[in-house]
């Protein structure tokens, strides 16, 4: 879908009717408490729904149980392989680029600040990480999967935020339209898809065009399951570039909430980095990925590490050069990547959420390896606005 500023403005007025109606009905009938309690026991697809679940919740869970009919399962396999090949880089891009990118949109930062449960970046980061890991499991869309119920719950969570923001007058609906509107949902999708690919590119990661397209595709499937109106989200990376660039330039700017959330995020990551010597690297990496203007808006501290971090993508580029040409080098770097991811995520989630063992299952037990040519390097589509 080719978007213009006008078509995007129209999307600000639209929420997610199915989920909104479900949540409103639950609140009207005073069934929210019972629903929440029972849903703690519903975590895998195909599982029998708990007894006593309100009828409206039954209907919602039935209507949203299946992925879109248009899903190309071969493409989803390619997305999983891309994720396995790049797991450490994707985690880094999500943590140091995608999270700050959300905070640089002032109304999104305000919404995240206002919703109590999302105040702590560690929780949101863990949830996002968990969500991605569920998505990339071999059985993500089959009976027994934890991914589909997670999507169904997140979609209702968004609807309940809309409900509360409106009722409690926390949202300027006249100026900003609907809370978590279609434009913001697609904007969020862009932050986790094409902008993560942009960050990987900036980190010097070599990606195949096929892998990058598949990663984007998987997020497009997820977007529709999360309530984006079918046909509204960009269908290709080129369309995504246009939407992403338009969306960011329409809204990005400084805000108190954005700076506060960023401070919390940096504190969290500094806790994860052992010792204190390397603490400034966290801020330097964020600054490197989002650029100086955004980093200043978010009040990311400057340090001497800012210059040093700029070298890392070039070094990574040299290392990946070795990986591209030597099977032994590829194996060694793969193991290193696995170890780093394991350390990074298990520290971040403090063991509460998950282990990163699942993608290994795909590779080792299913005997799958990436067949994409490494020579076919992906580079981001050109900017929508030529400089």
């Amino acid at each position, binding site marked *: 879908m080719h978007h213009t500023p006008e078509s995007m403005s129209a999307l600000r007025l639209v929420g997610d009717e199915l989920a909104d109606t479900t949540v409103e009905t639950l609140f009207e009938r005073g069934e929210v408490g019972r629903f929440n309690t029972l849903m703690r026991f519903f975590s895998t697809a195909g599982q029998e729904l708990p007894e006593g679940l309100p009828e409206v919740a039954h209907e919602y869970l039935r209507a949203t149980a299946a992925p879109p009919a248009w899903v190309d399962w071969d493409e989803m396999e390619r997305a999983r392989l891309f994720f396995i090949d790049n797991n450490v880089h994707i985690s880094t891009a999500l943590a140091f680029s995608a999270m700050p990118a959300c905070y*640089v949109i002032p109304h999104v930062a305000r919404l995240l600040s206002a919703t109590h449960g999302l105040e702590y970046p560690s929780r949101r980061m863990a949830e996002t990480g968990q969500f991605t890991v569920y998505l990339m499991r071999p059985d993500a869309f089959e009976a027994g999967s934890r991914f589909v119920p997670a999507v169904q719950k997140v979609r209702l969570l968004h609807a309940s935020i809309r409900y509360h923001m409106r009722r409690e007058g926390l949202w300027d609906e006249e100026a900003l339209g609907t809370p978590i509107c279609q434009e913001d949902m697609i904007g969020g999708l862009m932050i986790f898809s094409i902008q993560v690919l942009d960050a990987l590119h900036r980190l010097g990661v070599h990606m195949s065009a096929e892998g990058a397209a598949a990663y984007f595709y998987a997020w497009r499937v997820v977007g529709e399951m999360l309530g984006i109106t079918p046909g509204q989200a960009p269908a290709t990376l080129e369309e995504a570039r246009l939407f992403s660039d*338009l969306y960011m*330039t*329409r809204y990005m700017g400084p805000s108190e909430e954005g700076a506060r959330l960023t401070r919390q995020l940096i504190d969290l990551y500094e806790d994860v980095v052992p010792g204190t010597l390397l603490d400034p690297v966290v801020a330097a990496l964020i600054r490197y990925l989002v650029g100086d203007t955004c980093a200043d808006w978010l009040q990311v501290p400057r340090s001497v590490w800012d210059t040093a971090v700029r070298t890392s993508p070039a070094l990574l580029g040299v290392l990946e050069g070795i990986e591209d040409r030597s099977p032994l080098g590829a194996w060694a770097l793969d193991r290193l990547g696995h170890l780093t991811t394991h350390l990074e995520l298990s520290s971040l989630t403090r063991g509460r959420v998950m282990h990163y063992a699942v993608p290994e299952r795909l590779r080792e037990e299913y005997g799958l390896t990436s067949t994409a040519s490494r020579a076919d390097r992906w580079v981001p589509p050109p900017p929508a606005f030529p*400089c």
Partner: protein
Amino acid sequence: MSDPVLIAAGAADLVLDGVGTALRRAGALLGRADLAELARDGREELRRRGSLALRRHAPARESHMESLARRAASRGTGPDDG
């Protein structure tokens, strides 16, 4: 950039370029009297190779987000400015 980084990158680049050439050079070295000078030249060559290799692999200087932010800043922000 510091010398060790450049030399390491240069060495990596040299390895990629083909170990065979380096071995042939090493063989020829044994019969030479100006070894110290050659070592200095070798070090310099590695440093230059490193510099070139890092430049070759370095991504664009400015992040894409930076160009968008500058554009947003110069035009003001808000839905009506898009």
